[in-house]
């Protein structure tokens, strides 16, 4: 501690030690936590929080310190060598501090949330390992090193989902397979990138490659790998499934914040540092299409959900769409918007998941049909939720409004259709949060009464759970009103690219703001219409859900027919059946055909020996003929 503090005070030096702390400390303490005596809940929690605090301090130290990079040889194979290289500069430090802050807040919440639950030790352990790997991925300055940490995250991802439901790990398997496919694409993309850049693996040495020929393939593969981590379509479908099983802190941590941070970080690096993505190019269009498709499909699914966790998980997907759209425009305003939105999303999405966790803890369920009016018993959670919901819906002056306006600006500049679809997404986001908030926290008080379980009245959660929520909510406001703080950091990251632009303060285009506000007002009217029509807030969007045409589409989607993972599984099963059939056929050749053939042949040969000496003698003469023939032939 003293060392770190002295380093912090010293400020401006190369904080190499801080890097080691960020990589090693969470990993070591993660292992220590699980090795502590079984009943050591207190000790484990202290070690857990301690690791998170030190990590946050170290991240702060790196942010305040100077840029630097360090390297040492890692793998040597003749001429080929891989440098283990890490680099601290404003971008990676920005990601690190965001990760560290979110992890600390969620960690505090986790300590209370996991109390009394089994496997909390394993969860702490994987949480910390996950943090170490995420730090490594953000710090990596070599594509191979990046891949090492990136793929390591698969393990902790799988483990943390599996902890939620040990008897059925299908959600964890699904997450693992989907993320592994994304990682595979990333590996191929990295291979092409290294090849095309003449064998350069150091991320700060690669010059942006022009998007021509094979470079397009490398770009698309790397981009898909990065966006797959962020949860963009078609790598999204594990998130709603995981929401059902995985512990809520995991949802807040991984799909809510950390994966977005890492995925969008890498996507921006790919689009800016490794490849030169030009506005208006085909690739730009391709990425923007991924963005809007992700927004529309995911938010469309979110609208009809009747479960808080599941609804939020679809928003965890749809918000990525805005970031992808922003990156895809390749315009300064779009990329700034994407990074700002990434930061904002991490804040309000974590807050939303944390409030869902609070509801689950108090009521034992997050099913919107069973809960209502919780603001009367959980006022603080309700405030935190409301701020985060306003923020995600894009209501001024919260942070989500400002980042979305930047993206709208970029979308309009790139194409009217993208702008309109982004607006449609904003409308649906607002509509679904009106429904969610109204149903869960407003209206008459209602919670599931279950006699047997002796369910007490729901009450406010402990401070350790609502304080992180409130801090996050406060950041929603601070980063909204004071958006100059984060935007200054983001614009410094992009450096020369931002020359002459400054997007802090009130959005530049007042007409766009007015259109956005109109959309929000329309969403409110729509909600009121739906509420009046059905009388229940939870059914406020049923007129869209059961609209002719949409109804059928929703049915198909809810059954999983539109899930690429299900298609993949179907293809794998079909392939397995095909292999089985081929295997059977080969077995048949060996077990039936060959046996029949040989036994027929054998019977035939045996029948030649019919016991008559005359026939045997006849053979002798036939044999002699052949021998004579052979003798003459080979003479």
């Amino acid at each position: 501690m003293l060392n770190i503090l002295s380093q912090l005070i010293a400020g401006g030096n190369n904080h190499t030690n801080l890097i080691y702390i960020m990589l090693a400390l969470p990993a070591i303490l993660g292992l220590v936590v699980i090795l502590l005596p079984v009943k050591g809940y207190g000790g484990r929690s202290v070690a857990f929080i301690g690791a998170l605090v030190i990590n946050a301090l170290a991240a702060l130290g790196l942010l305040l310190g100077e840029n630097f990079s360090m390297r040492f040889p890692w793998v040597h194979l003749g001429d080929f060598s891989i440098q283990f290289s890490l680099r601290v500069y404003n971008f990676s430090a920005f990601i690190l501090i965001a990760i560290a802050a979110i992890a600390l807040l969620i960690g505090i919440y986790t300590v209370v949330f996991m109390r009394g639950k089994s496997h909390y030790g394993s969860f702490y352990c994987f949480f910390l390992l996950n943090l170490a790997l995420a730090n490594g991925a953000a710090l990596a300055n070599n594509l191979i090193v990046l891949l090492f940490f990136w793929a390591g995250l698969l393990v902790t991802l799988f483990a943390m989902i599996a902890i939620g439901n040990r008897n059925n790990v299908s959600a964890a398997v699904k997450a693992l397979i989907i993320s592994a496919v994304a990682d595979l694409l990333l590996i191929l993309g990295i291979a092409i990138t290294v090849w095309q850049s003449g064998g350069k693996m150091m991320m700060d040495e690669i010059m942006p490659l022009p998007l021509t020929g094979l470079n397009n393939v490398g770009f698309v593969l790397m981009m898909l790998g990065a966006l797959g981590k962020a949860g963009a379509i078609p790598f999204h479908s594990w998130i709603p499934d995981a929401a059902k099983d995985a512990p809520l802190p995991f949802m807040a941590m991984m799909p809510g914040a950390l994966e977005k941070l890492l995925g969008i970080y890498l996507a921006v690096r790919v689009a800016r540092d490794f490849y030169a993505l030009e506005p208006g190019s085909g690739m730009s269009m391709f990425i923007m299409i991924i963005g809007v498709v992700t927004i529309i499909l995911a938010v469309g699914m979110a609208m009809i959900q009747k479960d808080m966790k599941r609804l939020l998980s679809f928003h965890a997907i749809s918000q990525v769409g805005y970031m992808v759209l922003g990156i895809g425009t390749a315009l300064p305003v779009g990329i700034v918007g994407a990074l700002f939105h990434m930061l904002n999303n991490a804040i309000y999405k974590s807050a939303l998941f944390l409030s869902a966790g609070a509801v689950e803890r108090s009521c034992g369920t997050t099913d919107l049909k069973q809960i209502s009016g919780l603001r009367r018993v959980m006022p603080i959670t309700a405030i935190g939720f409301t701020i985060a919901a306003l923020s995600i819906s894009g209501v001024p002056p919260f942070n989500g409004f400002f980042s979305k306006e930047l993206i709208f600006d970029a979308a309009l500049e790139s194409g009217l259709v993208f702008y309109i679809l982004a607006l449609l997404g904003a409308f649906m986001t607002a509509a679904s949060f009106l429904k969610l908030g109204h149903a869960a926290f407003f209206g008459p008080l209602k919670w599931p009464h279950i006699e047997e379980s002796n369910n007490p009245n729901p009450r406010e959660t402990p401070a350790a759970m609502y304080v992180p929520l409130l801090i996050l909510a406060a950041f929603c406001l601070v980063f909204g009103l004071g958006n100059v703080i984060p935007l200054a950091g983001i614009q410094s990251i992009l450096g020369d690219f931002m020359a002459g632009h400054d997007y802090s303060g009130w959005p530049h285009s007042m007409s766009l703001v007015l259109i956005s506000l109109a959309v929000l007002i329309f969403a409110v009217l729509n909600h009121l219409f739906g509420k009046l029509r059905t009388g229940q807030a939870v059914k406020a969007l049923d007129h869209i859900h059961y609209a002719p045409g949409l109804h059928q589409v929703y049915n198909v989607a809810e059954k999983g027919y539109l899930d690429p993972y299900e298609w993949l599984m179907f293809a794998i099963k079909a392939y397995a059946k095909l292999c089985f059939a081929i295997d059977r056929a080969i077995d048949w050749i060996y077990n039936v055909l060959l046996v029949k053939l040989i036994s027929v042949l054998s019977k035939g040969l045996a029948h030649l020996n019919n016991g008559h000496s005359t026939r045997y003698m006849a053979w002798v003469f036939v044999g002699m003929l052949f021998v004579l023939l052979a003798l003459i032939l080979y003479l």
Partner: protein
Amino acid sequence: MPQNLISATATAVFIVGPLLAILINNLLPRTLAQKICLKVGIAATLLQIAAVCSCVWLFFANSSYHISFSVFWNMSAQPGAARFYVDFLSLTVMLAIGLVSLVSLLTANESIKDKALNFSNLLMICMIGMNGLVMVNDLFSLYIFLEITGIAAFVLIALLREERGLEGAFKYLAMSAIASVFLLASLALIFMETGDLHFANVAALLSSPAQASQPLLLMIASLFFITAFSIKAAMVPFHGWLPDAYQSAPAAVSVLLGGIVTKAAGVYAIIRVLSGAFSGVLAGVFSHVQNVHVVFAILGLVSILYGAIAAIGQRDMKRMLAYSSISQMGYIVLGAATGSVIGLVGAALHFFNHATFKGTLFVNAAALEKQTGSTDLEVLPCGLQARMPLTAISSMLAFFSTAGIPPLAGFWSKFLIILAVWQSGSPLMAGLALLASIITAAYFLRIQRKVFFGQPDDSSNEITEVKGSLALAEWLLSIITVGCGLLFPALLLLMQSKGLF
């Protein structure tokens, strides 16, 4: 002089030993002779094994690996005189003769009661024939001993005077008669051309067939010669008599026929004429005649495949073993036909190995016949491993050895043969020979699974393991199969270090 010592031992034991046994058996009072005749025979076979061992020792001690001698005539005698020649090939075969005869006697001890005296006498005559066959050094003496062996074998097959035995003996006799006619004709033609029947002289004359006055005559001689020995060795398609004879012979005689007689009478002669064997001094009659090699290679391969495939479909164990013998003799001939040193060593080793593992299997068949009354796979009860563990395990070891599974003895010899065939530039033949050994494993596993593996059923409750001399024979042969397998690499290295090949 060690030379004289060896020749004296060889003559005394290999020829005079069995003769003495016959004399003892027949001069003693009949009741006493009935009792001890088999033991006298056993003594003669043990003496032969001991003599082979001492000859080997003397060879190594003197660093002289072959010896020529005459018994009744001078070395410088005229053509046609009986001159003997003993080398490692002869010794290997004679060791196999002694071993199989011993096992046959042990089997007879359990299965042949009232005909024991006849059996012993005939077996001794058969031994004289085979021993002579492997020691002689000229074609005419070869013919004489071949006939002695054959005649003893015919009578042995028909020993019990059952209809089947008589029929099998007749078929063997008829086919052997044809073989004899061809052999004699061939000898006459060769004598006409060369004026000599001594192996070395004939070979010298035949080595330059272009200089022969009548090449056509020589080709006909070759044709007759090949036919004669192919019948004796039961090469396909000259094999018709063999399954019938093996199946119909009494158990003890099957052991003898399957283990040694057919091979000594036919296959040994083929090896001998195709090659100069180990020492290289004795030139094979046909060792320089390429087309005869090719013909024997083809006959060997056809026999391997035919025997293996036909064996799969058999339901009588002895008949299946008979087809298996055809297949295995094919390997020996194929190895010899390569003409290379590795092929010859492989052939000689396979000769000995075949004597042990096929002997084991015929002894097992005899044990099954004695304990269950049948050798028919459809009739034999299941799961006999629990009832007859020794028979089951010895038969499995013998099967594995036949199929060439390391480290059992059969692996090394088959490996050398296939290697030699591959090196001689015929990978296709080598592949087919390898394929046949997979089929070998298939048909043997069929027996093993049908008879020995699995749960014993109620019908086998009364069945017990064999005792006495049959069990002793199974033990002896199994130990040799495993022991040889483990010792073969060392043996081969030893022989190579002595410059034998």
